């Protein structure tokens, strides 16, 4: 399936991109994160064990087991600091 990925704030700067489209053969957020970590470098570092970040699927906060569907918008970002 095709997914639209968005990155925000510090992660957008670290990854050097605000958004991209990816092909994904898995089913869950956890599997997508594994695919991104497999890129190595900054991806493996920032999305690695013990790093704090949040994932939203179609603009709702998601969990590792959240399922992904064709065309989903998946955003990855640091813990929020507004207010």
């Amino acid at each position, binding site marked *: 399936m095709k997914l639209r990925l968005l990155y*925000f704030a510090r992660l957008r700067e670290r990854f050097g991109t605000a958004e991209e489209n990816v092909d994904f053969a898995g089913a869950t957020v956890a599997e997508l994160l594994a695919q991104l970590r497999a890129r190595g470098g900054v991806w493996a570092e920032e999305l690695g064990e013990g790093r704090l970040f949040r994932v939203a699927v179609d*603009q*709702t906060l998601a969990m590792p087991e959240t399922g992904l569907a064709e065309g989903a918008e998946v*955003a990855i970002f640091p813990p*929020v*600091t*507004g*207010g």
Partner: protein
Amino acid sequence: MKIAVQSAGFDLGAEVEALRRGRTDIGAIASFVGYARDHNDGAGVAALTLEHYPGMTEKALADIVAQAAQRWAVQDVTVIHRIGRLSPGDPIVLVAVASAHRGDAFAACEFLMDYLKTRAPFWKKEETPDGVRWVDARASDESAAQRWS
């Protein structure tokens, strides 16, 4: 209910009056305004820039307001959050809650701020003498939000 994400400033008095206008059933309005500080984590802050996730931000704020309305007898709510570059002393966020009685207004206002700080997709970047840095999330904000659950 009014939810706004905007670069422009806001006026607390005008927003409170807008909540009250034409109504005589409101007995209490509790409000909170957050301002940009000139210091954070031991460093001076010359300016900060607020980034957000357009689309999700508005949905997240509406969801938080809906949760408050389920828990307390809320008559109306205004939430305004600014984005873009702000200077110390500039207002960042406004939450105002109208209710028949103060208890619901105070509690809902505090709940809204605690949830906004931990669930609405905004991020702050500070300009300090040592350079530009992203603000880290605070554990104290998460524990403040946890006490409502």
